[in-house]
């Protein structure tokens, strides 16, 4: 059964209007800056918020369609929801939290508890069954919340992730487990990961929201190689230049130009990986690179085993270099440098 929404809702000044669908077995990650509408989208799908226009469908079943006066309450939607703040019932033990949904749907106490134990074991937190939620760590609470959602055997899974609050070790463990459980889950899963890396690891498809609108949908590979907005480009760490293509030259809005090996005509976006740019202290001669420009270093930030160099100039660019290169070239803030990139490393594609 697929889950899809095409419609809009207004919450105060904020306006969400999207068209998104998730197929069975698909893990769809929703990315976007704070306030883009990710949580609002999840609330609308869960039935905690009614659409103003459009419809939510689960397979052939209409869950919300204001034009036809249809609204299925969250109780009847059979969706598993994992909230960012877990929302475990504080006065119930872990096992009773997981059994809660089964009890609410009519299972007797003994069967519900037995099923709850099974799910807790499956998620590797069986030994926590008798604890109260306040005795759990963030990672444990998230697994219990996931067990609680999955125990009802939902038609689709909605998951707002809180990993930002977890320490690095727990985070790695939770991510590993999550991939496994999402893989085993057969229905559509819509997750809001805390960072793009997680989306790239978990998702089969990524939807990017900005200011309540879908700005890009695609596979992780498409999103990373062809970002459509400055936000997405920053998210995946790409340099992005909007401009107009003339032959293989892209005239960048705001000045300058880049040469791409293969550019379509008209309005385009030219994307360039930070690691594909070379830094020189003097104007390079005899270089095969067709893009050579000057820039001023504005920032130097360590990033893993590399240094991320921010530059300003006609074509502002982020460049990744090794620590050795920074020392050898004596790169420092305010220093004038030459940058070069091969035309084959510049990807130009039609602007949306």
């Amino acid at each position, binding site marked *: 059964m697929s889950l899809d929404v095409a419609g809009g809702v207004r919450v105060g000044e904020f306006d969400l209007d999207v068209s998104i669908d998730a197929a069975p077995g698909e893990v769809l990650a929703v990315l976007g800056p704070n306030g883009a509408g990710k949580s609002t989208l999840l609330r609308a799908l869960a039935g905690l918020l009614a659409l103003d226009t459009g419809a939510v469908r689960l397979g052939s079943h209409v869950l919300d369609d204001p034009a036809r006066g249809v609204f299925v309450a*969250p109780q*009847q939607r059979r969706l598993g*929801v994992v*909230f960012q703040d877990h*929302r475990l019932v504080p006065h119930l033990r872990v096992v009773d939290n997981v059994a809660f949904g089964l009890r*609410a749907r009519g299972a007797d106490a003994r069967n519900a508890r037995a099923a709850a134990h099974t799910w807790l074991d499956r998620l590797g937190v069986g030994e926590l069954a008798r604890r109260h939620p306040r005795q759990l760590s963030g990672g444990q609470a998230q697994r219990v919340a996931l067990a609680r959602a999955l125990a*009802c055997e939902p038609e689709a899974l909605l998951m707002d992730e809180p990993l930002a609050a977890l320490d690095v070790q727990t985070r790695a463990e939770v991510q590993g487990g999550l991939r496994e459980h999402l893989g085993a889950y057969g229905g559509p899963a819509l997750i809001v990961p805390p960072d793009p890396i997680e989306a790239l690891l978990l998702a089969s498809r990524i939807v990017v929201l900005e200011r309540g609108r879908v700005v890009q949908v695609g596979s992780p590979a498409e999103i990373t190689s062809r970002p459509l907005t400055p936000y997405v480009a920053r998210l995946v760490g790409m340099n992005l230049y909007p401009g107009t293509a003339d032959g293989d030259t892209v005239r960048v809005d705001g000045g300058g130009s880049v040469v791409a090996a293969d550019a379509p005509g008209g309005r385009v976006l030219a994307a360039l990986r930070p690691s594909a740019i070379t830094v020189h202290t003097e104007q390079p001669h005899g270089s095969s690179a067709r893009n050579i420009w000057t820039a001023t270093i504005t920032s130097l930030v360590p990033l893993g085993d590399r240094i991320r160099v921010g530059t300003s100039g006609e074509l502002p660019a982020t460049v990744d270099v090794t620590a050795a290169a920074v020392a050898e070239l004596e790169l420092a803030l305010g220093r004038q440098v030459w940058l070069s990139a091969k035309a084959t490393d510049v990807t130009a594609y039609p602007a949306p």
Partner: protein
Amino acid sequence: MTRARRGTGLGTPLVAVPPAVVGVAFLLVPTLALLVRTPWDRLGAIYRDEHVWTALRISIESSLEATALSLVFGVPLAWMLARLRVPGIGLARAIVTIPLVLPPVIGGVALFNGFGRNGLLGRPIHTALGQDLPFSYLGIVLAQVFVAMPFLVITVEGAFRISDRGIEEAAATLGASRSRIFLRVTVPLVMPAIVAGAVLCWARALGEFGATLLFGGNVRGSTQTLPTLVLSVFQTNPADAPALALPLMLVAVLVLVGLRDRWLRTAATS
């Protein structure tokens, strides 16, 4: 530290000291006098009187029943006041507040005119119960509910207002009906406030005097409670009255100790 603060002019203002001392002394002296003037030597004789034990039993039973009724009707009412967004809810809240500000004796007059034999609902009540409410045991229970239930409602309403709605949403996505959410999630979440409100309500019901006297009468063996007995004793034998205050004072102290943490917490967070 203290020296430094005094030096910066932030110490205790001298002008505040005398009124504060007089204030606490004024509150202390009468309470102290009750203990000092209790006829300890005749305590046994006074408490051997059958009427005293009957009044004490009626007081405890009626106040517990009034508290139970207040819980059954007051907790759902508190939820409505806290959560419903409909026109007229402000009016409903005002109605709940009336008994808090009305002198209890006027409450008794009001009960008479509402539920008495010739009251607005007198005839249907007589038909339904086969008896009149005034001067009956049920009458004193209802008089106590009238005066004490608002304490419970106001306490619990505040808790419903600030309780975590997110957990209720989660319960809804798990398929729990509204009633199930109310009984299994919302009410347990505010249980500390319900307990505190019930204790306040019970203490108020136990000490109820004005409305009980008017609506219940002061009939020995059926509607005479400890407070109304104190009135009778005070009129005929005033020296014995302090002895009858002991159980009520004991309750007051227990309530204070029981709720102290809660009040301190409230004061600290507000």
